[in-house]
């Protein structure tokens, strides 16, 4: 059979961000996929040379437009570890609340896009309708929908009043009900299962060896979640990673769906355990010489920050490894022997965040 080469992307209706895949196709079956990245490189890491370490928070938040809060948190955590600052318990729990809200809206966004990828537009709208509630919570409590800018070195900038906590809980109750209404559709519907079950299978061994991260990894049965490390306020909360074992697109979407509900539970737990106290401690001086390595769980998986300080207000090096970067080799392993029409669904199933990857 002759091989045909089909370019996929960087502009494609299913792709929210530009990534290019060269697909080698025999008949309708994909034999090989070769990625090309670098369409949205912004050089954010280099900005550490000209922005001081406080200002870098806003830069780190802009690495990703969806999980901005968690980028800010991991950067602040790294600097706090480097400077040996102990933040208050209240600040830790507040960071958890906004982090989980971000995970929720990121997953809801993805579930919508995923539904759209296999042509289920009504489900897409339905998920995004629920997401709007979470965005409103962000806007009302932190002042902005996506880039919440609540992190500072030494704590957080915004506080939650008891009234706001009650309002968040009531909004989450409604959101939970609305999400659960969709559970049967995304997990059991015939059409959905037809497009996602046994499509893009990634086995346990493949996922582990290729270094997959986040829901892609957990969808293949590996129970790995950085929140188990108990960073920040997660040590105080009851938490168990969610796993599925089939390793196909259905498993990855189910993991994300269940994680959305789990995040609601985590926010409830966090609000019930919100201690009294200050929200930030004062920070003086510059980061000393030394290096720090931090890992956190983002909606898309494990995110790694490496920071080296040199005693001045500028950092020597800031290195960010985002989850999508880790998920590209597994993506290529999912492609062989899949049908051409399933390629959009498989690409979306790793939740690609290309701007994150290229920073």
């Amino acid at each position, binding site marked *: 059979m002759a091989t045909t080469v089909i370019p996929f992307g960087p502009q494609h209706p299913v792709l929210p961000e530009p990534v290019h895949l060269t697909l080698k196709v025999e008949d309708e079956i994909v034999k090989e996929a070769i990625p090309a990245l670098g369409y949205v490189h912004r050089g954010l890491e280099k900005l550490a040379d000209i*922005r001081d370490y*406080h*200002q*870098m*928070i*806003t*830069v780190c938040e802009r690495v990703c437009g969806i999980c901005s809060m968690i980028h800010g948190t991991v950067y602040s955590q790294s600097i706090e570890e480097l400077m040996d600052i102990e933040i208050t318990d209240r600040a830790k729990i507040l960071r958890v609340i906004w982090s989980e809200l971000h995970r929720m809206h990121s997953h809801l966004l993805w579930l919508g896009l995923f539904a759209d990828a296999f042509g*289920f537009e*009504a*489900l897409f709208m*339905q998920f995004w*309708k629920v997401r*709007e509630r979470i965005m*409103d919570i962000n*806007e*009302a*409590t*932190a*002042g*902005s929908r996506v*880039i919440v*800018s609540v992190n500072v070195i030494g704590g957080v*900038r*915004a506080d939650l009043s008891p009234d706001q906590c009650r309002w968040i809980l009531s909004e989450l109750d409604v959101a939970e009900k609305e999400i659960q*209404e*969709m559970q*049967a*559709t995304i997990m*059991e*519907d*015939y059409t959905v299962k037809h497009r996602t079950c046994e499509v893009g299978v990634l086995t346990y061994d493949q996922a582990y060896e290729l270094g997959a991260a986040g829901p892609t990894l957990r969808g293949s049965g590996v129970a790995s979640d950085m929140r188990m490390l108990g960073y920040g306020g997660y040590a105080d909360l009851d938490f168990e990673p969610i796993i599925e074992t089939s390793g196909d697109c259905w498993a990855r979407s189910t993991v994300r769906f269940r994680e959305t509900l789990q995040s609601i539970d985590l926010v409830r737990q966090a609000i019930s355990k919100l201690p009294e106290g200050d929200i930030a401690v004062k920070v003086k001086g510059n980061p000393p010489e030394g290096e720090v390595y931090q890992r956190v769980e983002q909606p898309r998986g494990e995110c790694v920050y490496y920071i080296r300080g040199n005693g001045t207000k500028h950092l020597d090096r800031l290195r960010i490894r985002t989850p999508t970067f880790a998920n590209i080799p597994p993506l290529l392993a999912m492609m062989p022997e899949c049908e051409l029409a399933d390629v959009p669904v498989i690409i979306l199933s790793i939740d690609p965040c290309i701007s994150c990857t290229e920073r």
Partner: protein
Amino acid sequence: MLFTPTVVKNLLKKPATRKYPFEVREPFEKYRGELIIDIEKCIFCGMCARKCPCQCITVDKTAGTWACDPHECITCGYCVDACPTKCLTFKDVHRKPMLEKTTWVEQGTPPKPKKKAAAKKADAPAKEAKAEKAEEKPAKKAAPKKKAEKK
């Protein structure tokens, strides 16, 4: 088929969206919409300009001007936190679209020269103050005009 109940419910309910330009939601109280300054309270210390991560604020202490490029501003609110006199605040609605890029300049009263100069001419400051006040009035009028241009 499992989605049918939701579809039927949605058909019977009113739309989830608003008819936007005609119907606008109440803004949230904490929303960081647009940076505004009460120039009368400003002491031109330049703290906001130093803290700003996108360097969109320029403060000139001698001339008593406070300038901000609204197109550069990312509404992070670091300047508001840093301001010692709390003259910077946020409006809860965002800036209207503009046709041209403008820099927003506010003219205030520059801080008075320090004690030495003031002690030498004991009667001069009074005249200077009067002169400053006279200058201030057109400046005050000029400021809203610039804002109006922006709109």
